[in-house]
């Protein structure tokens, strides 16, 4: 509770400083965006940043796109509150990159042009496959966007020192959260519509750099505090948590032993389901897939993924220190008093470290402001990447290829992409206001489950299965998408539990929080059934796809 009182004392200093730092970040990135917009002339510039990024630059940008509010705020919060179980996310999020590296990145780069659907529709009938891909891209992106906006809302109430029951500029806590969500939404629309992929990529690079430095400094301070003895840090975290050594073991949050055997079974299945969704989701995320198009060749796409694995891996090691550090130095009580789901553990840790190592309250306020600005930058950049990927898909797949049947001019296509960015942003803003009581890492895991169910089966079948056809692609996408979304809708996440989107109603019948264990196999199964039920079998076109995806011949 101590740091909590200090938080109030230094709230006004923090506010001013954070707002200043945040404005500086916005000014710099807006400058980059406007500069990039002057160089954005063709559709390739807008969608793929001119394909001129290097392996390291794109590796940084991939990391920037990937290390979202979920990674920084969500995982740190989960570890701080539930100990070891939060670490499971770090592991799943990292191992997932092997699927992207081994099975997807290079082939997608070779055979596609702007969007995921370029590869899915390569040897299929264009209109139905592109419509399906476009819909699933938008749905996955919206799930992911909700998580980011919820993170932004939690963050701002910490920064502005608003807790439930207090006011800021005449707004109560809830109104201020909503105002922030709208502000973040508006800024992202500016980045995407003005800067396109080139602007967004530079924003990601700047952000990834800031986030790595911020996390490194905090990790270093935590380790200094414990004289670089990991065991002491863990021991202190376990003692402070009041849960003893159970805090360092799996089972406090996921796979909890319950009163009845059935409940325990569901609880453990939920853990397995989450684990599978995390590892299979990454290679189906539209905003990650479009990143592979920003480099000139598949070899550079490979290099960029290797860089990303290195950067992201190191970052997730930092999350251990951040999460257990927050548990030990801030304490679970102070964290849940600020945000029930733990989303503010990392910035609260920054404040505690600042107070200890940078001269008291002012130091605490400064470090909090810096880390909060980094977290804001993180959210803003990821939101921009997501909005770009989904609006690109609407414009390139749905408008240009389905509605205009390939006759739209590049200028028209880019205009539609900009309008779609606006609409998708607005929808995400609205939905995120409903989901504010959820942990953001958990919300992102839902997006991963939807991506793994709807997109991954279709991508893998397209690339590696000769017999796969239009009906198979449509079945795979809609089968995976509908089963994942329906199961989420009837899960305890939406109704029938205290933290649900609609806590006062109960229409849930699906016992698991994460649908992956059912919906991912269903996506694969539907793709197979759809394929064998249809007679379409274009081996000639598969020859072209296979030759192009493996050799890079004819790549854009």
């Amino acid at each position, binding site marked *: 509770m101590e740091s909590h009182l200090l938080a109030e004392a230094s709230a006004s200093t923090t506010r001013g400083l954070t707002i200043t730092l945040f404005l500086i970040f916005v000014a710099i990135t807006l400058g980059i965006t406007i500069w990039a917009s002057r160089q954005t002339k063709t559709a390739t510039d807008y969608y793929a940043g001119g394909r001129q990024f290097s392996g390291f630059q794109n590796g940084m940008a991939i990391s920037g796109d990937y290390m979202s509010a979920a990674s920084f705020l969500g995982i740190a919060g989960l570890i701080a509150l539930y100990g*070891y179980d939060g*670490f*499971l996310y*770090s*592991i*799943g999020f*990292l*191992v997932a*990159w*092997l*699927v992207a*590296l*081994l*099975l997807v990145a290079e082939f997608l780069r070779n055979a596609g*042009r702007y969007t995921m659907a*370029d590869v899915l*529709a*390569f040897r299929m009938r264009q209109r139905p496959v592109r419509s399906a891909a476009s819909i699933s891209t938008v749905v996955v992106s919206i799930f992911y966007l909700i998580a980011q906006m919820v993170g932004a809302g939690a963050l701002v109430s910490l920064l502005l020192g608003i807790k439930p029951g207090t006011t800021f500029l005449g707004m109560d806590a809830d109104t201020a959260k909503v105002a922030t969500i709208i502000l973040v939404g508006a800024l992202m629309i500016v980045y995407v519509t003005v800067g396109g992929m080139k602007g967004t990529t530079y924003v990601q690079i700047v952000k990834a750099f800031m986030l790595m430095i911020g996390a490194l400094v905090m990790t270093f301070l935590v380790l200094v505090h414990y004289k670089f*003895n*990991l*065991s*002491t840090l*863990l*021991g202190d975290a*376990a003692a402070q948590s009041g849960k003893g*050594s159970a805090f*360092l*073991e*799996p*089972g406090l949050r*996921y*796979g909890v032993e319950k009163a009845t055997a059935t409940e325990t079974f569901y609880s*453990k299945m939920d*853990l*397995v389901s989450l*684990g*599978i969704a995390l*590892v299979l989701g990454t290679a189906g995320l539209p905003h990650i897939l479009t990143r592979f198009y920003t480099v000139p060749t598949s*070899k550079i796409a*490979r*290099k960029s993924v*290797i860089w990303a*694995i*290195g950067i992201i*891996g190191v970052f*997730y*090691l930092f999350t251990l220190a951040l999460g257990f550090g927050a548990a030990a130095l801030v304490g679970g009580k102070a964290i849940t008093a600020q945000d029930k789901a733990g989303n503010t553990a990392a910035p609260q840790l920054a404040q505690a470290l600042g107070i200890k190592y940078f001269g008291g309250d002012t130091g605490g306020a400064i470090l909090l402001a810096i880390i909060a600005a980094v977290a804001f930058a993180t959210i803003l950049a990821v939101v921009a990447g997501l909005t770009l990927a989904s609006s690109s898909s609407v414009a390139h797949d749905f408008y240009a*290829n389905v509605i205009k049947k390939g006759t739209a001019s590049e200028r028209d296509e880019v205009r539609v992409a900009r309008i779609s960015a606006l609409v998708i942003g607005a929808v995400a803003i609205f939905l995120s206001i409903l989901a504010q009581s959820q942990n953001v890492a958990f919300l992102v895991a839902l997006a991963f489950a939807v991506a793994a169910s709807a997109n991954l089966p279709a991508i893998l079948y397209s690339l590696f299965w000769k017999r796969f056809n239009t009906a198979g692609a449509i079945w795979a996408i809609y089968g995976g998408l509908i089963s994942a979304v329906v199961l989420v809708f009837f899960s305890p996440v939406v109704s029938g539990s205290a933290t649900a989107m609609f806590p006062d109603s109960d229409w849930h019948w699906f016992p698991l929080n994460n649908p992956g264990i059912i919906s991912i196999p269903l996506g694969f199964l539907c793709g197979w059934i759809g394929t064998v039920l249809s007679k379409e079998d274009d081996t*000639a*076109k598969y*020859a*072209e796809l*296979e*030759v*192009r995806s*493996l*050799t*890079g*011949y*004819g790549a854009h």
Partner: protein
Amino acid sequence: MTTEVPSESSTERYQNVQKSEDFQRLRHKLRSFIFPMTVAFFLWYLLYVLLSAYARGFMSTKIVGNINIALIFGLLQFASTFLIAWYYARYSSRELDPIADSIRNKMEEGAE
């Protein structure tokens, strides 16, 4: 989306390349690496998830101080991911890229 309209001859051309010995060798070398490796890391990861769910006693065994098997197992997942990424980069630049480059160059020469 392909920009060129595939004529009969270009379709045949892709099929001929696909049948060629070089391409089959590339395809075999690629698939015999990525598929078993995917199965291996996926099972290794699944083992970790299942142990976290069902073998709590084993996972909570302390090794050094407060560092238990669960933490070490998690860190081993990091190590295996880094190792596989590094090994794949090495394998593909030594074994796959030369064949892919030569096929592509031949096709590009033939296209002119």
